[in-house]
């Protein structure tokens, strides 16, 4: 007989977000329904279709790491990852184990995005190497300009596995190590796969989550060209309006969310504080179109169904759903339809909210900060609100916890992330009663 599948619990949390850089401050601001959105200052976006974003403010990773020198020149993604992981690590109490903790049993699974593009130098090299007559790049001229302007460190640090590599150095993590980049679903997927690694017994502890920043000129350009971003330039704090009839796209955010997870047995033996149980994980693909979600929400339904089933729960057990809730017309109506299709009558009884209304959309890191919000919501038995939900949309007719947080019983919840291109992931969490 196979031994029963180990239960997996969260023992550390950390985030770096547009609302702040420590767990409690950010959570309190969320409880007040604050917005982290404001005019973009990272670069001059004043003539862009979208002039605002949800930036991380007043943050420096150097105070969070043992030796800043080995992390010099990292991208924003890695900088945020280091800060979030340091918080999670500290809360987990693992440092107290000292040398008795075999670091080949410490793994990392991240869903991180690429590092910060060296935009000005990249553009200057491209313009210098471009021949107007033929409308093509001339290799030698480009190479000359590119090697004079761009530096090895900044280029190498754009590789999407650099946050992973830097966390491994910081925490001497030598176990299984992965980075996945399934667009907006990445960090939810990372946490789900990390859970699977622990259940297989391939590691004792996993550090997992995600980090990303696409707040750079080409990131904003790309999303503006897709008409995916809100252009409510006159009212940035009102721009992220998930489930509202007058929503006009998402708000680009940035940051990181990291958690420490381990088997219940491992956590209890070392007397760790347990925030919540990660009970189930589901992953699916729409296999529909690159540009659109399947209209019936086929993929999201499959990932939510698998997560609930994998957790050994029934759909009536779910009290709260942390929605993907991006604030685009398509996502919010499709996600609503998927929830209604899967949950039937129970859809009207559970509560749903989108923390993206406050943070903006952290892209690859979105799922991790959402999951942390779920852990805190279960701890405090209070669900975070969907702010800016001023004009209910007849297509979005669930209880989205508008404007203010809600005291409620949350014994089990789901967190959803759906990526551009159709990869979907859901996690099911159970409350931990101490």
């Amino acid at each position, binding site marked *: 007989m196979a031994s029963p599948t180990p239960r997996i619990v969260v023992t550390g949390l950390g985030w770096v977000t547009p609302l702040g850089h420590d767990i409690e401050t950010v959570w309190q601001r969320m409880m007040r329904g604050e917005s982290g959105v404001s005019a973009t200052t990272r670069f001059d976006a004043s003539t862009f279709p979208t002039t605002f974003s949800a930036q991380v403010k007043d943050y420096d990773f150097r105070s969070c790491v043992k030796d800043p020198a080995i992390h010099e020149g990292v991208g924003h993604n890695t900088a945020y990852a280091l800060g979030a992981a340091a918080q999670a690590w500290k809360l987990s109490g693992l440092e107290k184990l000292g040398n008795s903790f075999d670091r080949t049993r410490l793994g990392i699974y991240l869903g991180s995005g690429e590092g910060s593009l060296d935009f000005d130098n990249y553009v200057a090299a491209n313009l210098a190497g471009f021949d107007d007559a033929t409308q093509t790049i001339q290799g030698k001229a480009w190479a000359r300009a590119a090697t004079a302007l761009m530096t090895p460190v900044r280029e190498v640090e754009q590789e999407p*596995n650099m946050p992973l590599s830097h966390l491994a150095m910081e925490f001497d993590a030598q176990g299984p*190590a992965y980075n996945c980049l399934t667009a907006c679903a990445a960090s939810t997927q990372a946490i789900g796969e990390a859970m699977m690694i622990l259940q297989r017994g391939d590691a004792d502890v996993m550090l997992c989550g995600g980090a990303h920043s696409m707040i750079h000129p080409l990131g904003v350009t790309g999303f503006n060209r897709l008409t995916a971003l809100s252009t409510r330039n006159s009212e940035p704090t009102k721009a992220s309006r998930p489930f509202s009839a007058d929503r006009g796209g998402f708000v680009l955010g940035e940051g990181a969310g990291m958690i420490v997870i381990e088997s219940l047995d491992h956590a209890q033996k070392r007397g760790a504080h347990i925030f919540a149980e990660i009970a189930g994980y589901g992953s699916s693909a729409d296999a529909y179109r690159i540009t659109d979600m399947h209209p019936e929400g086929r993929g999201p339904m499959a990932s939510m169904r698998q997560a609930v089933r994998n957790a050994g729960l029934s759909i009536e057990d779910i009290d709260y759903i942390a929605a993907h809730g991006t604030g685009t017309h398509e996502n919010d109506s499709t996600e609503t339809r998927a929830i209604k299709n899967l949950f039937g009558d129970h859809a009207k009884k559970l509560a749903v909210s989108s923390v993206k209304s406050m943070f903006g959309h952290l892209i690859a890191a979105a799922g991790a900060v959402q999951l942390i919000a779920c852990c805190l919501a279960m701890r405090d038995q209070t669900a975070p609100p969907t702010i800016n939900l001023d004009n209910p949309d007849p297509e979005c007719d669930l209880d989205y916890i508008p404007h203010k947080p809600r005291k409620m019983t949350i014994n089990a919840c789901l967190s959803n992330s759906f990526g551009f291109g159709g990869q979907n992931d859901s996690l099911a969490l159970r409350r931990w009663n101490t």
Partner: protein
Amino acid sequence: MSKRVVITGLGTVTGLGVGIDALWGGLLEQRRAVSPIRAFDAGGFACSLGCELPEDFKVSQFVPKTYRKATKVMARDTEIAVASADLAARDAGLFTRGNAGEGQAVTYAPERVGAHIGAGLIAAELNELTSALVNAKGDDGKFDYHKWGREGMGHLTPLWLLKYLPNMLACHVTIVHDAQGPSNTITCNEPSGLLSIGESLRVIQRGQADMCFCGGADSKMNPMGFLREVYSGRLTTTMNDNPSQAVRPFDAQASGAVPGEGGGIVTLESEETAKARNASVYACVLGFGASQTVNPGKRNLFPDEHGRGMVSAMSAALREATISHDAIDLIVAFGCGHPDYDKAEHAALCSIFSDRLAAIPVVAVRPFIGNCGAGGSAIDLCVAAKAIKEQTFPPSINRDHPLPGMLGNAPARQSDIRHVLVCTTGLGGQNAALVLGRA
């Protein structure tokens, strides 16, 4: 009990040609795809060598007519993945939405098919991007943000960004083949392909899919991708005049790597369902391991000299396979041809195999097809699967002065091959290893 998993199809697109037979045939004949780069003038870099796909490679030959329009939003990396997946499906004798004829039933229910495909940092096509950027030149000839915001960016096609998201490799494959099961995109540089195959293995073992398309694809044959390879500090700069000898894995005179482009995708199936459809099997996947190198002195851009991380990945794979190293008859190694990487890998192999290493062929495909980034380790696995099926050692070349305790140059030859170990590492320090057994 977790399910047994087998390989039933191989799809490769490399400098040696399209399809596993082209690759295998090229290896046996010791043909090298290494040559001066054609795609752009690389004469401004200290290394000007690469490994490019045959010029007649066209993705449109690998998608159904109804999906040809979508090829316009595919980056080269995605084209390679889509072609490799199509080849892998056909090689496995599978029918999917992508290749089934009218009225022909698909082999697997869509929700039982997964896709795990590794990708690199996809470089934007510079001619396309710069044609838009020039519209934002200010009076001083420099880039003007205001002009870009107002008018410049409008010159980029609306779907521009979607071309460059790394998950598009897997997403296009899921759409073409109607694969609605678990799907993931691993982005860990060179190990991405093998790590992705490990992810599919786990998904099938735990019963969440019966079949997966898995592997990776990448292209460094563009100026920006190539610059990043140059900046990784791993390329040879002394062999521009001698392409066929340029990449020398595990040779005392190794001087560095040569980048390439290519992809490898395998169809991985649960043994149970593969048997039920009488599929022809290349090999069984018996064990897998993953680990991380920690080498702060080199910021994980190069492995530590003992190859500690590689040792633990290989040990984990052997442990799961429940075999000792004595049962391994062939090793398909990373062998990128950079002395620091090779020495670390050599040390790791010595630590696992000790004296026995002198009796086992350690094959590396990078002298033939270059370092194909996220696709490379999946191509390695395809070669390993073909070798065990054919019971033939691929050749070892450019190893006139082998590192101590290792075999040197050898032509291909028939031999009894019970198990093959595939191992890989890469920029950033992730490691993966996999053990194959006979069908």
